[in-house]
């Protein structure tokens, strides 16, 4: 098992490398180098441009040297010192800006993933066992609607409804008095009362498709001879279904993390922009619009890393639930 985890982590390195190249390409894409842009911005706002500072910036990011050197300066800074460069818009090191936001994004994504599994697993099982029942049809219709509705639209509709009928605005993750408060039970409770809305919005589309996956997996298993045999021996139906076919059907279900998580993080970025949550989304969008590329690049790199870590966890879970995978 330990070896298996080690092998998986080693397998992540090339993927991480590819993501970092991609992120750096995006940093490099806007025309002109960012120090000149920065200098132009300063000059525009009337600040006196300190040429010594600009020179030190040029040197730090290796501007004027070839792209490969620049890339290695950037990634070297991240790997050795955790230094993602400076955000020119905020005039702060990127590190100070990203971790809190990215942590919130990771937390919301993780909670949504758990909620999605918790909801779709029982409904999927029920849908398969009672195929073509009312519940099955309702789940199917809900599934297609969830798939076809862009989640930002869902967020806006929910905001509209809550404003029109409850007179309260949804948005944010904390009440104003808790935003800067230290961690406490009251703050956690406040978080829970706010967080269910983004979780609900984010989870809808994924839950819908997970129900379909679970239903299809279980339907494949339900009519196999081993189920028939267990039933013929007089095993109680509920215990039978949960002990045998469900466990087999669970494996493809766990491996869905690979595509659910990227979709979840993508969705989180849009929904948090609409609901104005203190997560990575609004900051990334702002950074991209003002071409604050080091900040944007850091977010793109970290969201890629988040997916890789999520996939690693799902691989480990899969290995625990299915011995064939860790032994082969």
């Amino acid at each position, binding site marked *: 098992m330990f070896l298996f985890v080690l092998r998986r982590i080693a397998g992540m390195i090339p*993927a991480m490398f*590819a*993501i970092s190249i*991609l*992120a750096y390409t*995006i940093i490099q*894409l*806007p*025309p002109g180098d960012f120090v000149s842009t920065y200098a132009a911005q300063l000059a525009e706002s009337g600040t006196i441009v300190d040429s010594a500072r600009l020179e030190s910036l040029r040197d730090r990011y290796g501007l004027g040297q070839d792209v490969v050197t620049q890339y290695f300066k950037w990634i070297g800074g991240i790997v050795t010192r955790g230094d993602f460069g400076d955000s020119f818009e905020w005039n702060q090191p990127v590190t100070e800006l990203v971790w809190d936001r990215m942590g919130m994004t990771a937390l919301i994504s993780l909670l949504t993933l758990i909620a999605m599994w918790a909801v779709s697993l029982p409904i999927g099982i029920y849908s398969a066992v009672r195929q073509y029942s009312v519940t099955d049809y309702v789940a199917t219709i809900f599934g*297609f*609607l969830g*798939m*076809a*509705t*862009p989640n*930002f*639209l869902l967020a*806006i*509709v929910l*905001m*509209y409804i809550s*404003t*029109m009928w409850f007179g309260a*605005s949804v948005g944010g993750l904390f009440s104003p008095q808790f935003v800067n408060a230290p961690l406490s039970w009251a703050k956690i409770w406040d978080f829970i009362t706010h967080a269910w809305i983004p979780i609900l919005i984010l989870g809808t589309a994924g839950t819908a498709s997970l129900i379909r996956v679970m239903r299809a997996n279980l339907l494949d298993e339900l009519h196999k001879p081993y189920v028939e045999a267990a039933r013929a021996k007089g095993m109680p139906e509920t215990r039978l279904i949960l002990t045998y076919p469900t466990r087999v059907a669970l494996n493809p279900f766990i491996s869905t993390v*690979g*595509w659910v998580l*990227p*979709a979840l*993080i*993508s*969705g989180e*970025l*849009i929904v948090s*922009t*609409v609901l104005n949550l203190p997560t990575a989304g609004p900051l*990334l*969008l702002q950074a*991209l*619009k003002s*071409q604050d590329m080091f900040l*944007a*690049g850091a*977010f*793109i790199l970290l*969201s*890629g890393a988040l*997916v*890789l870590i999520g*996939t690693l966890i799902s691989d480990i879970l899969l290995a625990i639930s299915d011995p064939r995978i860790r032994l082969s």
Partner: protein
Amino acid sequence: MSEPTVQAAADAALLDQQVDASRLQGASQWGLIWHKFRRHKLAVFSLVVVGFIYFVALFAEFLAPTDPGRFDPRYTYAPPQSIGLFVDGSFQPHVKGYSIELDQASFRRVFVVDPDVTIPIGLFVRGQSYRMWGLFETDLHFIGPLDPSQPFFLMGADRLGRDMLSRTIHGTRISMSIGLVGVGLSLVIGMILGGISGYYGGFADRAIQRVIEFIRSIPTIPLWLGLAAAMPREWPPLQVYFAILVILSLIGWTEIARVVRGRFLSLRGDDFVIAARLDGVSEYRLIMKHMMPSLYSHIIAAITLAIPNMILAETALSFLGLGLQPPIVSWGVLLQDTQNLRAITQAPWLFIPGICVVVAVLALNFLGDGVRDAADPYAK
């Protein structure tokens, strides 16, 4: 129901089956596919819906009552009008006019329907002139007020007093064409890479599969946003449109490549392919003449299922302000207005483009499901 009629009905059904069977024996592959597709009622219905949406996209200028850019500050957030058919007992299609009152509580201008003002409307009326498909000048509109200067807002107006119906119709053209053209581009990339992957196998296959896995594991929105943000601001709208197409296709091709690869892999070992190869058929001819025909239906299914994803992606990008830019009108661009919570509480009809997105995506998905099931007419 009495005994003989049941018997007759059963006979008729049996006869139908026999006729069906004899007809199917000589049917072409496309005939078989169509026969199987027709049994999927939801897919047939979706085909009609999708056909209607593309019809609207094709004839947008003619169907829209006005130009999507025409604004009138007097009618900011004017509510939708409803069509009445009779005036004083005689047939005269019309809408009611507006009068403006000041809401004493909020000091906002509110529109109320003015029952005294009737605005006669008609089909095939003369209105603003436009160039149909850029070919010829005309001013014929499918529906509109008889006097073009009168207000006519079947779906209400937006914050600049522009007609939502006209804007949604023109948005249909852009959104649906992004889906179609974007998928066309993904198809080219997907066919080539998927074909190489499935036909040759070996190292090329492994390399391409790694690339696909990698692309699928990246969260798409940050990537799209990053690429879109890198576009120079001064680009003209048409260039932005094509840049967005390329950006969406860069990621969209993977699903098509997967389908093509899978089909090539399974066809490669089929008897007729081996026979053709042993007969010394050239590789190009083998792929184009022997393997391709059994791929078409699967590719059509993959395309139909890829279009809605393109539409959703474009909508999300434009919604965030990094996709298409006004004056180009797409559903996503129209939905930008809904970001303002005050605006939508005052004018909920701004959601209408969102409904269009949901309907189009649902219909294309059902249609794609139906085509996929029918794509292999010999499967049980």
